[in-house]
């Protein structure tokens, strides 16, 4: 039966060439769309690893060149910390580097262990970061002032980096070569998905800020019961200590929405365009099949006269179309398979394979739906009428 169908299609391969080409292109478009959907969805399902509700991000910048005295920076930051903490609504605050959660900034640094090096996201924070962000420690603990007294500077790594360097052992106490020298790991933190819900997990390192260095951003966690005036009072507190600074207060929850939109908006546009293309293709395939049925009335009439049932005819039309799409899919998969094989775009190959499977399934379902009505039309052909016409 199947062999018969293949012969039928093979004999008309020239006529079907364009239809097959159309299916190949649709498959590739679907493959691209599904790759992105699968990729973003797997990222989305992973936990955030920190809290963003009721956290404010305060950035400030000053005149360059002024305030270069290290002692005065230390004093100013201590005063700022005291004033902010004295506000009743504030729970905790932490000085962070400019690549804080949901900001557009990133900074990268190489870290190596036993000669193997890895690029990591490089964060600088103080001791209060885990309390503000409510991060989860996988093992060990966050660094504190005592750790800074040791020979090696303390370092916290996230569990993605831990899996790369220490897959089956404990990372705490190990030393890594990083930036300006050796660092001792005090703990492993559950990876923070700090570039939005759809961002992939990346290896990261958290370094303890030196007391005398300037940090341009502060994260403040506050009581959810705080009233509407809290933000402006916080602003006044900041501008009271940091005179002549430009200060900007943002809510982490709002920054998260903006960050997510940078992924979601292009994705929605892609889905709209892709959806339109698929509807277009579906209508086209439907039209061509319908026309083919009306052209093959004589043949179908003959088949009926020889004893084929109506269901058999409908089945034949549908299976013919499935065989046709299989031709297209084999060629399409050949192209799509190059992505995981050549490791293009640096995505896990599982994403590509899932995307290929989903696209194949989608094409088959689409084709069956498109072939169903023409198949039924063919089943209703009366042999006597059809044969009489010829």
């Amino acid at each position, binding site marked *: 039966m199947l062999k018969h169908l293949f012969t039928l299609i093979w004999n008309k391969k020239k006529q079907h060439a*364009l*239809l097959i*080409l*159309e299916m190949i*292109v*649709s498959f590739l*478009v679907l493959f691209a769309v599904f790759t992105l959907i699968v990729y973003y969805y797997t990222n989305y399902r992973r936990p955030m690893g920190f809290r963003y509700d009721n956290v404010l991000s305060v950035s400030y*910048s*000053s*005149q*360059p*060149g*002024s305030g270069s005295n290290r002692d005065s920076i230390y004093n100013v930051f201590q005063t700022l910390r005291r004033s902010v903490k004295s506000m009743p609504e504030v729970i905790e605050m932490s000085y962070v580097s400019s690549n804080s959660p949901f900001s557009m900034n990133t900074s990268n640094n190489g870290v190596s262990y036993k000669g193997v090096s890895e690029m990591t996201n490089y964060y600088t924070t103080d001791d209060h970061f885990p309390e503000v962000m409510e991060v989860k420690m996988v093992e060990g603990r966050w660094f504190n002032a005592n750790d800074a007294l040791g020979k090696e500077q303390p370092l916290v790594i996230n569990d993605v980096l831990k899996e790369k360097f220490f897959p089956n052992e404990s990372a705490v106490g190990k030393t890594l070569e990083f930036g300006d020298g050796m660092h001792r790991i005090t703990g492993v933190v559950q990876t923070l998905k700090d570039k939005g819900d759809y961002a992939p997990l990346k290896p990261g390192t958290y370094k303890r800020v030196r007391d005398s260095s300037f940090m341009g951003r502060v994260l403040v966690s506050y009581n959810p019961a705080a009233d*509407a*005036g809290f*933000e*402006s009072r916080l*602003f006044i507190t900041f*501008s009271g200590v940091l005179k*002549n600074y*430009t*200060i*900007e*207060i943002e809510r982490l929850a709002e920054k998260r929405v903006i960050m997510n939109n940078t992924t979601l908006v292009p994705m929605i546009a892609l889905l709209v*365009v892709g959806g*339109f*293309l698929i*509807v*277009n*293709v579906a*209508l*086209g*395939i*439907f*039209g*061509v099949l*319908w*026309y*083919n049925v009306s*052209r093959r009335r004589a043949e179908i009439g003959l088949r009926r006269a020889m004893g084929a049932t109506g269901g058999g005819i409908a089945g034949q039309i549908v299976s013919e179309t499935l065989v046709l799409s299989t031709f297209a899919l084999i060629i399409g998969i050949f192209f799509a398979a190059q992505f995981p094989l050549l490791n293009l775009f640096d995505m896990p190959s599982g994403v590509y394979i899932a995307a290929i499977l989903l696209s194949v399934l989608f094409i088959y379902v689409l084709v069956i739906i498109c072939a169903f009505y023409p198949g039924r039309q063919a089943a209703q052909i009366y042999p006597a009428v059809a044969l009489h016409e010829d």
Partner: protein
Amino acid sequence: MLKNYFKIAIAVLKRRKFFTFISLFGISFSLTIIMVLTAFSDHLVDSSYPDAHRSRNLYISMMRLTGEKHGFSQNGPPSFYFLDHYVKKMKTPEKVAITSFHQPTNTYINNKKLTIDQKFTDDTFWEVLDFEFLEGKPYTRQQIDNAERVAVISENVRRKYFGDEPSVTGRYIETDNIRYRVSGVVKSVPITQFATYGDMYLPHTLGKRDPQDKGLNGDYFAILQGKDASSLPAMAAEYDDIIRRLPIDTSRYDKISSRADKYVASYTRLFIGNQDDSGLNRLLLYVGLVLLFFLLLPTLNLVNINTSRIMERSSEIAVRKAFGASSGTLALQFIVENLILTVIGGLIGVVLSFIVLAIWNNSGALEDVYLYLNYKVLIISLLVCLVFGLMSGVYPAWRMSRLHVVTALKTY
């Protein structure tokens, strides 16, 4: 003759309504998507309020210092010092405007946060750009030199900060705990116009920078305005010359690179280009490829549908052939019929685009970004339409012209 083709085309369209619907759906939606995208890129690229003379402007927004020996590289906007000392003195441009990139500041009105994006400019900025003043006037050279705290604000800030008051010139606005006197109010600029967008324009002397700092990197950029488009090459050459002659601080870096570019090139160089290649051609290539791939599916679809339809008419074609019509005449007739179909689809597409753009303009998804279909967008869509019609008409017409009269006549 053409009238006949038209009549036949309409008759064919009416015959199989479902096929007509598929064809028109494909054409009109593809065109709508292309037209909306063209309108958006037109908004980004083309001269628009207040940057009305982009064809005779050059933009300097990047300066790169590299030292291969030290593995040092610094890439960022140039400093005010550099622009003021070297670029301002250039001879070929008519006017040079210097302005900072916009920077957010916060202010609180009744405990509600208002973010005001500040932009520091010199006085030429107001001459190079055609701002529409709703009230008041820009600050003068004198006021800038005296570092007076005066500000030109946008219509949006006037509404959000002062409410519905008709006139606010001379009143005070406070942000970052500093009070500025409002000198004028301009029509708001959308954020998509990076060179000119701001909520509050201030004299550059109020900018937070160290007057002693003579570094080359900062956060300012310059707009060079020539007499007309033909003076741009001379301006770019003079700027290249300035960069070549800049004193190099060899202890840190050994190469300075910066270019004066046209508007679009100044962005493409930033994102996909480098110092020698502006990346503009590459961007056009990418856009072209994506567009081609996007159009491939609807075209293939249309070819398939057309082939089916034309074969349905094999008896008509056979009769005409039998009576002496040449293959060429028939192919031409079919292509013309197909063009009529695509043009009808195109007209529906124009109507759909109007609806989509009206929805966009009313939604306010991006503040002050209004999209329109201008003659340029329409001409591009018409071209796309013609290419569409030709591409999808030629193959079926060729198939049809090869039809054998005898076999075709025998089928019926």
